[in-house]
């Protein structure tokens, strides 16, 4: 005997699941500034969605407040534009109560790492099956340009006219330290790679965290130029691929090798090192993930992009379901009238 909700949500999907990206575009203006890095997330998300083969009505996007917070309005699926910092908490309640849904979170560096930091770290450790995309523009944009927890030390913003004093978070390291199972990073200049990362996140059963460097051309233009600009990109970044050595450079002429725990750049052309000396990526090694995560702000090595870690662990929502099923299996579905009566009731006649 299904309850009303089960009944309402279990009606068979009518029509095709062979979606086109445009099927995910609602009929509204995108209210981001022209040139905003946010577009570079929106488009790969819309392109990737058809690949999932999930009915549109089974997908929900939850957001907090910030420029990223508007994301749900731009996806023609279910959407909830929450309050500042709480997207993961809202999404957790949704997913735990509705394991049938594909639940996504769109959040910002301020939304997720400043006011929402607690929900983020608990999301990581709890491993609720959410896909979290963090728009990291290293600034608070919607409030017009204050420094954020990922702004670099010394950054001049409207609220740090003399330079920010805080050490920034390293989002990948924070996620790993919090126990996240899936941690990845991409940037707005490489939409194809982002599409791949989002797909992998969707496939991951558990909490998937994808940090995306997005340029805010209004309040922090060029924040990522030092490694993301076309001409330097290949020399200043390295792509992480499971089972592959860390090779990079325009000419694929450099690699990353470990000196003890210390990653260092070596040349593959000066005869000193060969590919065999290089660090080989392993998504399942959480120590390696941490070493790679720690390369983030290290100017001597390229910035890693890709999947730092992808571990399997039961998701929280699955565990809840399992516990319920197990209880019912071993003890029988509870009888409400017995619950109400308890063990010490009496009759008045």
């Amino acid at each position, binding site marked *: 005997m299904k309850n009303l909700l089960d009944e309402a949500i279990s009606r068979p999907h009518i029509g095709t699941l062979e979606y086109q990206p445009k099927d995910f575009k609602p009929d509204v203006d995108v209210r981001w500034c022209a040139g905003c890095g946010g577009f570079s997330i929106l488009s790969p998300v819309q392109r990737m969605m058809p690949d999932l083969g999930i009915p549109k009505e089974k997908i929900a996007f939850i957001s907090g407040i910030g420029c990223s917070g508007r994301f749900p309005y731009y996806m023609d699926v279910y959407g909830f534009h929450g309050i500042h910092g*709480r997207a993961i*908490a809202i999404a957790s309640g*949704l997913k735990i109560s509705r394991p049938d*849904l594909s639940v996504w979170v769109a959040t910002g560096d301020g939304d997720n790492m400043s006011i929402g930091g607690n929900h983020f770290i608990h999301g990581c450790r709890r491993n609720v099956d959410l896909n979290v995309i963090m728009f990291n523009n290293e600034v608070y944009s919607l409030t017009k340009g204050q420094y954020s927890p990922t702004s670099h030390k010394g950054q001049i913003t409207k609220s740090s006219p003399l330079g920010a004093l805080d050490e920034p978070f390293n989002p990948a390291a924070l996620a790993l330290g919090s126990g996240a199972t899936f941690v990845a990073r991409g940037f707005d200049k490489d939409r194809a790679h982002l599409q791949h990362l989002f797909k992998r996140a969707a496939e991951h059963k558990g909490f998937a965290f994808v940090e995306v460097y997005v340029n805010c051309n209004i309040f922090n233009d060029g924040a990522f130029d030092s490694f993301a600009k076309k001409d330097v990109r290949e020399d200043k970044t390295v792509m992480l691929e499971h089972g592959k050595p860390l090779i990079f450079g325009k000419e694929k002429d450099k690699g990353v090798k470990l000196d003890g725990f210390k990653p260092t750049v070596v040349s593959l052309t000066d005869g000193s090192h060969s590919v065999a000396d290089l660090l080989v990526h392993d998504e399942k090694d959480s120590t390696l993930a941490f070493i790679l995560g720690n390369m983030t702000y290290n100017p001597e090595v390229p910035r890693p992009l890709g999947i730092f870690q992808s571990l399997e662990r039961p998701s929280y929502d699955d565990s809840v379901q399992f516990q319920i099923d197990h209880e019912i299996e071993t*003890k029988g579905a509870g009888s409400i009238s017995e619950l109400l*009566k308890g063990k010490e009731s*009496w009759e008045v006649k």
Partner: protein
Amino acid sequence: MEKEIVYLDEITVRFAGDSGDGMQLAGKQFSNASASSGVDVNTFPDFPSEIRAPEGTLYGVSAFQIKLGSNSVNTHGDMIDVLVAMNASSLKVNIGNLKAGGMIIASTKGFDARNLKLAKYDSNPLEDGSLSKFNLIPLDIESIVKEELKGSGIHPKIVRKSKNFFALGLTYWLFNRPMEPTVKWLNTKFKSKADVLEANIRVLTAGWNYALKNDAFKNQYNFQPASFEKGTYRNISGNHAVALGLVVASKKANIPLFLGTYPITPATDILQYISGYKKYGIRHLQAEDEIAGITSAIGASYGGSLAATTTSGPGLSLKIEALGLAVITELPLVIINVQRGGPSTGLPTKPEQSDLYQAMYGRHGEAPLPVIAAASAADCFDMTIEASRLALKYMTPVILLTDGYIAQGTEPWKIPTMDELPDLAPKFCDDPKNFAPYKRDPKTLARMWAVPGMQGMEHRIGGLEKQDITGVVNQDPDNHQKMVELRQEKIDRITNDIPKLEVMGNPEAELLVIGWGSSYGAIKSAVDEKLKEGTKVAFVHLKHMNPFPSNLGEIVEKYDTILVPEMNMGQLKNILQARFIKPMIGLNKVQGQPFKTSDIKFKIDEILSQKEVVQ
């Protein structure tokens, strides 16, 4: 000696001792046994905020008070008839509430030099004659118990710990209550601990026999059975009633329940009950904080569950921002706030009614929502159902206020059958063509509800102001005015969907008492007693605080003088004055203690005598 059986209307017993003395357990057993044997019972556990305060100290005293009677028992009793005092401190802090002539059963071992010093007694009150106006029965319980279990081979620690069962046995004899329920309970509880089981049962029986045989106990007391309606009953605390109410509401709504919450005294019990209900298919999240508690519930509500969050004062303060989100997204949500003494951390284990303002007014922006309050432990069940009904029918968050007194205190509850309870089934929209997220039911003004998973109704909602009907983000001035007014109007209309108030007492009275929340019992008793004395006084008790019942205006107009007793500085009084433009008199007890019947009676007398003088 032949013992005389004396029939009583009602009596108040208080078990008091050290935190480690098992007084809560004794009290609970006594009340269960009493209730199940046909008397009416009302209880109040009263313990320190320390987990295990140092032994023997004044602030470490833990007590459990029970009032029992053959007529309807509304409070746990103002003054104590029988005090069980396991040590000097517990005598000291409770003696002030013992009736002249009342009985003290004192465990002499708890009055040794060390205990006397900790209790700051200069001489032993059991010996210095200072208790002469009471019926003092000092017993060396510890030795009696030791004697009883001598040779049993039971560990001395267990022997010592069974003292409370001796006291319990005594009182069972004294009030002629059956020991079976306790024996049964012991059998289940200590199934696997034969020595504890044996010790407790033997000591319990020893207590009974001691009283039976000892001359100090002259009378055995008894009650006419209370006149309960036919049915199945159990003793229930307010927190337990809320937990059951949530489960039942979700069954009556025929949608799943989700509780998102964070532990906080005195609301934690609700989470604890719910966390054991997995076999009823219930989901919950013990979240990282109160904000995640309520926002996860909002997420679940968005997903189509009956969603609830439970808390107490400091936690409610943290949920305020999210409450506004639930108001503007117009999602059903039940918020249960078990009030305790404030401000700030305040008096965490003590009851108060000082969160009413916050429930009514405590959000930024214009964010109206229904507020209701439970009157007693058992009423917490009905009010939880009512909160769920309003939330689902009107698509709105609803705050239910209870407090530490009724949350932890118990009373007999007539267990309802599912058919007696209202149908709470929500209407999910099933017509994508006609769907718009802010289209409203013309009667209730509730917006349409479609949840993820329903094809063709994909839509976006959120915390920004939205256009009427479409729900699209909108900053138009007139639209904002309209939406603010619609949200207000929706709540106001609930007035027509809640019961009118019935005036109790003398409708011709000059004085009307308006109560709310847990002070119901004390006010009701006071008014009943005054009526018996021939005083003309009337009484209404509010359970719906926002909106008020439709006839409250009429009633307020009818009475010359209005008294509003509250465990706060006059919050309801102020709200009523603003609404009905009529001055009222407050009785404001902010002591972390529930009202006594006598507090209310005293105030009624004071008001009426002044009125006479004036006339």
